[in-house]
């Protein structure tokens, strides 16, 4: 789960990584007040869960409360790569002597933690990594041992950060790593991590992604999630514990297992259609889950036909069929529903559907046939 910058910085502060003073504002007036309280020059920064906001004009320097208010009114409501800006972070401007890059993440192929540090932070770090790979120092960390002191020093010296700041930089890396592990982050990235004119190391940005599987260890993380803007259909799906992503086609998709659902989208595309969504009911879905999934699709006006593709393992096809029948009776479902059932209790499931005389139900024997029929009902190849 990707955090807003201000949320990430609150976690940095928790482990003792220096961050500038700042305030969150959801209106230009509040931004002006925040600038007044902070005093001096401030930076007004769009809070969005996506990178590239600087280039998009989502970061502005303001030298007075009035200027901060004006900057906020420009930034609030802005669209940055499909993300609407609902809040800005107003923080004291920093005295920047150098801009570094630092990150901790999991390297899947090495199966170890990976630290990356560069003296050329601030700008296009992916470009730096590509044109001058040596400028980004990489070091693997054994998750059993953790980041050793000598490794933190090695990162600082090999990346050629300012020598007079090496102790503070190594200490900051240790703290960022502590945040990465103790707060169960998938990613901790600071770009830029700055050296101030006074010789301090400060995190000027924070890209933190949390591991949702570890939330049981961090009950306070729920409040981060509560601050995220949520599409009403996605919110409804989340409430029902369904994994739902809105897409731009007209064939509604329901399936079990992320791999099978992704594959269903691919086959729909292959036969000339476009999926309206990705909806994974997960393993062991009962009748209620299927009913809820169909209910979620009723909220999407672009859906013109629905394809239910189930291969039962833990999931039982008879329960899936019961859920469909229940939904047909209880909800106003305006589209044809093509159903493909295989695996655990598929025979029982197909019998339940065959016993219904509902004209909206269309049985399909294979995944390919199901995709073809669903695309045809949605209005044919496009």
């Amino acid at each position: 789960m990707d955090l807003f910058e201000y949320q990430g910085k609150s976690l940095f502060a928790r482990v003792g990584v220096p961050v500038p003073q700042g305030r969150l504002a959801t209106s230009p007036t509040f931004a002006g007040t925040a600038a007044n309280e902070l005093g001096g020059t401030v930076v007004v920064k769009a809070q969005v869960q996506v990178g590239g906001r600087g280039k998009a004009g989502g970061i502005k320097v303001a030298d007075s409360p009035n200027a901060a208010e004006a900057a906020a009114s420009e930034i609030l409501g802005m669209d940055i790569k499909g993300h609407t800006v609902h809040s800005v972070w107003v923080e004291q401007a920093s005295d920047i002597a150098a801009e570094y890059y630092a990150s901790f993440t999991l390297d899947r192929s090495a199966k170890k933690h990976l630290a990356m540090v560069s003296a050329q932070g601030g700008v296009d770090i992916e470009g730096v990594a590509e044109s001058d790979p040596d400028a980004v120092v990489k070091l693997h960390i054994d998750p059993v041992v953790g980041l050793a002191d000598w490794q933190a020093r090695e990162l600082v010296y090999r990346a050629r950060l300012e020598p007079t700041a090496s102790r503070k930089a190594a200490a900051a890396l240790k703290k960022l790593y502590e945040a990465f592990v103790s707060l169960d982050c998938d990613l901790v990235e600071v770009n830029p991590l700055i050296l101030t004119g006074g010789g301090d190391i400060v995190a000027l940005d924070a890209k933190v992604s949390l591991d949702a599987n570890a939330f049981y260890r961090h009950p306070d993380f729920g409040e981060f999630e509560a601050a995220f803007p949520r599409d009403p259909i996605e919110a409804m799906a989340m409430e029902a514990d369904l994994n739902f992503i809105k897409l731009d086609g007209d064939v509604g998709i329901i399936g079990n297992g992320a791999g099978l659902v992704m594959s269903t989208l691919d086959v729909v595309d292959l036969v000339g259609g476009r999926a309206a969504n990705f909806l994974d009911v997960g393993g062991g879905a009962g009748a209620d889950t299927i009913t809820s999934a169909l209910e979620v699709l009723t909220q999407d006006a672009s859906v013109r036909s629905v394809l239910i593709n189930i291969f039962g393992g833990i999931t039982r096809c008879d329960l899936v069929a019961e859920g469909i029948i229940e939904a047909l009776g209880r909800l106003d479902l305006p589209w044809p529903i093509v159903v493909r059932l295989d695996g655990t209790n598929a025979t029982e499931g197909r019998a339940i559907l065959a016993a219904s005389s509902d004209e909206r139900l269309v049985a399909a024997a294979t995944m390919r046939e199901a995709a073809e029929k669903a695309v045809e009902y949605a209005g044919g190849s496009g």
Partner: protein
Amino acid sequence: MAILIDESTRLLVQGLTGNEGQFHGFRNRDYGTNLVAGVTPGKGGTDLNGVPIFNTVAEAVEATAANTAMTFVPPPFAADAIMEAAASGIELVVAITEGIPAHDEARVYNYITQTSSTRLLGPNCPGLLSPGKANVGIMPPEIAMPGRVGVVSRSGTLTYQAVHELTMLGIGQSSCIGIGGDPVPGTSFVDVLALFQADGETDAIVMIGEIGGNAEEQAADFIEANVTKPVVSYIAGVTAPPGKKMGHAGAIISGGKGTAQAKMDALGSVGATVLDDPTEIGTAVQAVLR
């Protein structure tokens, strides 16, 4: 021969007395798997349908010579359970549990590779099936039939889909292995490809991948250097929307890898048959076996 599990498998289930452990543990036994023990701390000394329950894995191994463990322990306790099994000399741990924190997985993987010779399959995997011999996990065994094609997949339900396509055409399987889709799988495509290549009862390999990570690209490199048997592959997620990733770290590591197209290109360039339709897996295998 089959790989990883067969008639010599002596299965222990961590969490056998729980709902899922019981349902799948005994479904595995009904299939013919030799289920020898259950482990539930606090319930040692009892038995469940004739299977003795122990407090610790070490005790169970001593008493029953169990060599394979299947874990249904909930996420907060799963990492501990896997390490216990490894420390007790279990050869293969199959971790079905879904939702283990990534940092726990990374610690467990490095701990067991450094301190034991235990192989971990999963976590968050459907387990494995050697048709006609043994079933350890949650795969519905009725869709499989004994034969000479090895199947390996990151996705549970797509494994079933692939096996189903083969069986419908009368093509049997030597072993079907679900490696799981978590960030730190204990067993990778490369590990399983090596086992199938060495297996005298496997003639061809079906490999099902999906977007994300670079395990499929690594598999392609391995196939080029080491695999002489025909490989049929399918990668899910060609039309999946690009993830809303905000950091640069992932992009720097992957360097353009990870998309379905990159994976398909990598596999195609080393001679694998690459399909864009999973329903053609059966006919494609038929073609390479001819």
